[in-house]
């Protein structure tokens, strides 16, 4: 049988944020969507796994206030459902936000999407949020606008949202059952009172569901984010996935809880753990039966700028944009050209033949492999330099992208790194479940440690296309008899 590559992959541009080829749009992740929706998302980096290598997004932090409390959030920092906690974003006024957006759009023509995602809840700050959207839809009609919300104030905002250029809304829905919700949301501010416990969760859930329905009725795309909290809502999220899909959400993004104690969140302080990469992946797979899953989410911070996984915010701080002169009319012409050429490239890739034949028993078990790559869709990074690994699954059905796993890279390039070894063991723990790691080069010490951990290091496929290399390694494993299932082994014994 043929070992096809499930991703629509291809060569990637130099500065791919995700440093991977075809981050896993299984066949075509958006294939089942009606044309008008595909038209809306094809160049949206957060919605299309293909697009996120090419198109960039930015967030502006204009909405600091919030109307609920989540146990995974410390309001001293940013909203942790849309941004990493522990970092405070530069808060902007709507005027500053517009100026910054125009500056970024002119300097990074691949930027197609402006999002408002907090810190705080954009719809709990309607004046600031809508003032920003209003000005941008007038001054920069070529930028898509989107907004992320906890949903409490969503129903009353839908009409206003529909008026601007907003065709995408993200709602964070962590529960559809108030008993589960009560473990995540201690209180909400509702009708001028603080309401606590189950009653609060019930109101929030009702508002979220109502908002979701109102948006889809108006043809506004809805993505649902869920934070996976082990022991609290992990099993329940399968139900959430089913329900939001049936109400018309088009993409579900299950994200891991971030709960380091030093962020000072309730969950962090109380010792609630986040999910292991494998647990997250299993849940994503379980939910995927019901709908599209987003697997390339990087939990960007609320003022991130650039391709997903990169942050060029430093280039566009307030003092820097004050000094910039922007001719947006001219920029729009250039932007349109850049977008056209990216589209052409994407179309070409869609037609590229990704196939690697192999004679593999359809019952052979699937294998996870970790890839060190800094972009271009090829294996081109030293093991010790990788800040993240791309996880691919090889099976008789083909090769598919699964996720990114972040690591602290252990090699700082000197002999001085005294805690190198402990970071290395942490890196190896991050790769648990993988059976091979493919990189351009690897040192002796990590080689031995990886082998001891049951992960096979492999530097033989340097500069090869990721999918081809993964398929080749899988085939070698098959030929070596390493892919027999338990049933096969019984046969051999018998």
């Amino acid at each position: 049988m043929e070992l096809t590559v499930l991703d629509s992959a291809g060569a990637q541009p130099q500065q791919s944020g995700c440093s991977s080829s075809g981050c896993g749009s299984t066949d075509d992740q958006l294939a089942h969507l009606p044309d008008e929706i595909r038209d809306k998302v094809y160049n949206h980096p957060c919605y299309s796994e293909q697009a996120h290598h090419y198109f960039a997004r930015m967030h502006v932090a204009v909405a600091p206030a919030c109307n609920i409390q989540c146990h995974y959030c410390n309001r001293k920092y940013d909203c942790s459902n849309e941004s990493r906690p522990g970092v405070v974003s530069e808060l902007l006024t709507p005027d500053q936000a517009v100026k910054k957006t125009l500056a970024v759009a002119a300097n990074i023509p691949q930027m197609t999407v402006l999002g408002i995602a907090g810190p705080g809840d954009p719809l709990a700050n309607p004046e600031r949020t809508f003032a920003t959207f209003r000005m941008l839809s007038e001054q920069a009609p070529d930028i898509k606008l989107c907004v992320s919300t906890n949903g409490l104030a969503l129903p009353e905002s839908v009409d206003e949202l529909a008026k601007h250029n907003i065709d995408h809304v993200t709602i964070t829905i962590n529960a559809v059952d108030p008993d589960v919700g009560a473990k995540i949301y201690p209180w909400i501010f509702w009708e001028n009172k603080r309401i606590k416990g189950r009653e609060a969760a019930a109101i929030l859930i009702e508002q979220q569901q109502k908002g979701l329905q109102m948006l889809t009725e108006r043809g506004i795309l809805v993505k649902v984010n869920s934070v996976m909290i082990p022991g609290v809502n992990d099993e329940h999220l399968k139900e959430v996935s089913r329900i939001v899909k049936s109400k018309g959400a088009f993409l579900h993004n299950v994200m891991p809880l971030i709960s380091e104690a030093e962020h000072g969140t309730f969950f962090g302080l109380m010792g609630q753990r986040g999910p292991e990469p494998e647990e997250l992946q299993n849940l994503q797979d379980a939910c995927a039966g019901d709908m599209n899953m987003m697997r390339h989410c990087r939990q960007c911070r609320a003022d991130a700028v650039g391709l997903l996984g990169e942050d060029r915010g430093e280039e566009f701080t307030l003092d820097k944009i004050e000094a910039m002169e922007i001719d947006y009319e001219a920029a729009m012409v250039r932007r349109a050209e850049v977008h056209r050429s990216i589209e052409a490239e994407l179309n070409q890739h869609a037609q590229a033949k990704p196939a690697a034949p192999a004679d593999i028993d359809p019952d052979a078990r699937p294998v996870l492999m970790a890839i060190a790559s800094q972009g271009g869709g090829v294996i081109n990074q030293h093991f010790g330099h990788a800040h993240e690994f791309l996880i691919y699954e090889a099976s008789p059905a083909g090769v598919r992208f699964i996720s990114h796993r972040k690591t602290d890279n252990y090699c700082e390039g000197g002999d001085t790194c005294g805690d190198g070894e402990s970071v290395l063991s942490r890196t190896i723990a991050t790769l648990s479940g993988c059976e091979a790691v493919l990189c351009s080069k690897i040192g002796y010490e990590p080689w031995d440690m990886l082998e001891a951990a049951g992960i096979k290091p492999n530097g033989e496929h340097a500069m090869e296309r990721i999918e081809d290399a993964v398929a080749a390694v899988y085939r070698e494993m098959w030929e070596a008899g390493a892919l027999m299932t338990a049933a096969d082994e019984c046969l051999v014994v018998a």
Partner: protein
Amino acid sequence: MSLRIVSSCVNCWACQPVCPSDAILQAPKHFVINDRKCTECEGSYDVPQCASICPIEGAITNAAGEAMNPPGSLTGIPPAMVAAAQAEIRAR
């Protein structure tokens, strides 16, 4: 009569837009309440709005200097029970 915002305020902005008297201002260190403008929301709402949305226990005090949201009141866990709850959550 007026409420006060004290130094544990984390500048989250939540109170400022909900005040019916426009009495809350951003100030160099943290938000402050203008005591000439604050009405404790009397005549507008049953409960002081700022204290009802503030996420930080102890950040807003009443005229007597007592915390409007005392320790444990917002997470729902009385301080004495924190240790027990911690043990339970860890077991998950």
